[in-house]
């Protein structure tokens, strides 16, 4: 495999969005609603770097991974793979699959229960045109690369005979079988025992370093993101609310949501300390007009409810999508445009 230069952007998403159409209140005549699972996502996955995407359930992290692997097609936006824009109108082809692979969350569900492990590993090799006489050797090699030895012992097993950690290694091995350049890992450790989580994280790290893979690591566990990641992105309600080129975001969060997220991590040294709670937004937990987080934000300004905040640089290499950090000029432009809008409306009336 030709070695890629570390740090080179391999897969880039530009303003990627995906809307799902859902029935309103479930009634027969209810209007169909569109829900933005992912909105305006900008991600760059770089060779030899791990990007952690952090967010709560429903923040759109998993949909983002599926968009990037093209299992789900985006509503708008573009994907750039190796500097070439991907034609999103066509079906995802084998060439794309061989470059970008996705590891699913639940290792037990991701393996076909009635097929041997060997089948799951040999199929990708067969599909992607590895000559038949090399397949067995390649399968052994892949299993060894995820530290499952002796390989033959695993190839003949059924998934239910293996532990969660072993299965997740096999899932990663399956994704690696086609020698991808980009690996998307959708909460790869959340279904595993705490005792084997570190092993999987270390495996991802070493794969990233040895093979110069670009890895997107999706998690809700900010501690694991800090352990493994080179860059961090925080998502809320389908939008990216804060990002940093290093892990500085975790040490000095600027967006109120990130601050809450980090404050909610249990800290044994601060037993008895008061727990910071977000005001629950009630029914309007997601504000669709202004800042998505504003109904739950304790520091929300008046403008937050009506105007979508810009992405502002809060520190070198760290950006937050928040009005609190916006310059006066930026705030003023919105107030003015609001005023003029109001004037226009009043004139029309």
């Amino acid at each position, binding site marked *: 495999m030709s070695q890629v230069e570390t740090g080179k952007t391999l897969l880039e998403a530009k303003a990627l969005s995906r809307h799902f159409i859902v029935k309103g209140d479930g009634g027969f005549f209810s209007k169909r609603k569109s829900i933005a699972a992912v909105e305006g996502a900008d991600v760059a996955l770089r060779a030899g770097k791990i990007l952690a995407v952090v967010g709560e359930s429903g923040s759109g992290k998993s949909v983002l991974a599926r968009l990037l692997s093209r*299992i789900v097609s985006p509503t708008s936006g573009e994907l750039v793979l190796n500097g070439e824009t991907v034609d999103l109108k066509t079906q995802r082809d084998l060439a794309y699959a061989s470059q970008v692979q996705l590891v699913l969350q639940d290792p037990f*569900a991701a393996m076909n229960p009635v097929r041997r492990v060997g089948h799951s590993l040999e199929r990708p090799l067969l599909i992607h045109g590895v000559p038949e006489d090399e397949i067995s050797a390649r399968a052994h090699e892949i299993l060894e690369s995820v530290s499952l030895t002796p390989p033959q012992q695993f190839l003949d097993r059924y998934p239910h005979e293996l532990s969660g950690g072993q299965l997740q290694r096999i899932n990663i091995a399956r994704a690696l079988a086609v020698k991808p350049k980009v690996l998307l890992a959708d909460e790869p450790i959340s279904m595993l025992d705490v005792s084997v989580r570190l092993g999987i994280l270390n495996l991802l790290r070493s794969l990233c370093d040895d093979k110069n893979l670009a890895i997107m690591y999706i998690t809700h566990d900010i501690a694991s993101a800090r352990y493994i990641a080179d860059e961090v992105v925080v998502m809320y309600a389908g939008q990216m609310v804060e990002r940093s080129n290093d892990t500085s975001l975790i040490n000095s969060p600027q967006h109120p949501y990130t601050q809450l997220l980090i404050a909610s991590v249990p800290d044994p040294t601060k037993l008895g300390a008061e727990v910071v709670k977000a005001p629950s937004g009630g029914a309007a937990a997601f504000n669709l007009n202004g800042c998505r987080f504003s109904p739950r934000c304790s520091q929300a300004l008046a403008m937050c409810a009506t105007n979508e905040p810009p992405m502002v640089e809060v520190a070198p290499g760290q950006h937050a999508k928040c009005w609190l950090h916006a310059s006066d000029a930026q705030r003023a432009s919105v107030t003015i445009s609001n005023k003029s809008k109001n004037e226009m409306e009043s004139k029309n009336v």
Partner: protein
Amino acid sequence: MKHLQLPKSLKVRVGLAGLGIFILLTIIGPWIAPYDPNYTGFAQNASPSWNHLLGTTIQGQDVLSQLLIGCRSTMVVSFIAGFLATIISIVIGVASGYVGGKADEGLSVLSNVFLAIPGLPLLIVLNSYLPAGQQTNPLVIGSVIALTGWAWGARVLRAQTLSLRDRDFVEAARIIGEKRVRIMFGEIGPNLLPILTSSLLFTILYAVGVYTTLAFLGLTNVSTWNWGTMLYWAQSNNAGLAGEWWWVGPPGIMIALIGTSLALINFGIDEFINPRLRAGGVSAKIRRASGAPRRPRLGLTPVLHKSTEAGSR
């Protein structure tokens, strides 16, 4: 195949043995039949004796010979019908479940229509349109029966495919780039195997019933021997009224027995699919010996404290 072993369940063993005997009769029936079933020179209406183990008919034909020779036609037609119907139901059921959308709606309507059509009248009509020479062709009759019998299996397979379609392992197969057909038959298919087998066995059973019915009504060629035509002749000669039980009884019992064998095998498949029916992997003998409750409670793995001789397996 090192994984192939004799099933532990007694029900399945009995069922498999029964089915084995019927298959054996299908193969060797015509050779072991003591007489020509069409020969009419024996004593008429004789009750069972050493010469005629199942007696003779009113025309002086040997009943046992008819029964043994009739086995082949019944079994061959039923198995052909069962397999053909199952193939149709796999293609239609799995495709409609996996592809979804408009294709699913169309295929569902099709199978609903076939479920709603009364099978027997349709068969009678179809059968009457067959050219005379084709009425004895088991392949043709089997296909006609399959045409009316696939819809039930298709519904079941569609439902199961729907539940498997969104499982992670299917998505994983899509991620590595598997083609649609491969996912349907290579990944989802093997997971349908237990249901498929059960559907196959029931369809065979249905075909036995339908074929016998058709023959009993005299709608197939009555000069070929099967259990249905035997009943047809018995009925038209008032064997039941005349008390000739040895003529009416055996074909009926044979049909009941093959039904029982197939149903017993199906019980075993049920236990295979749902291990809870297997009493948590503990045989009844061991459970009784250890004083565990006879019926395992759902969701609880039985724990046997008393170690007994039978328990150390």
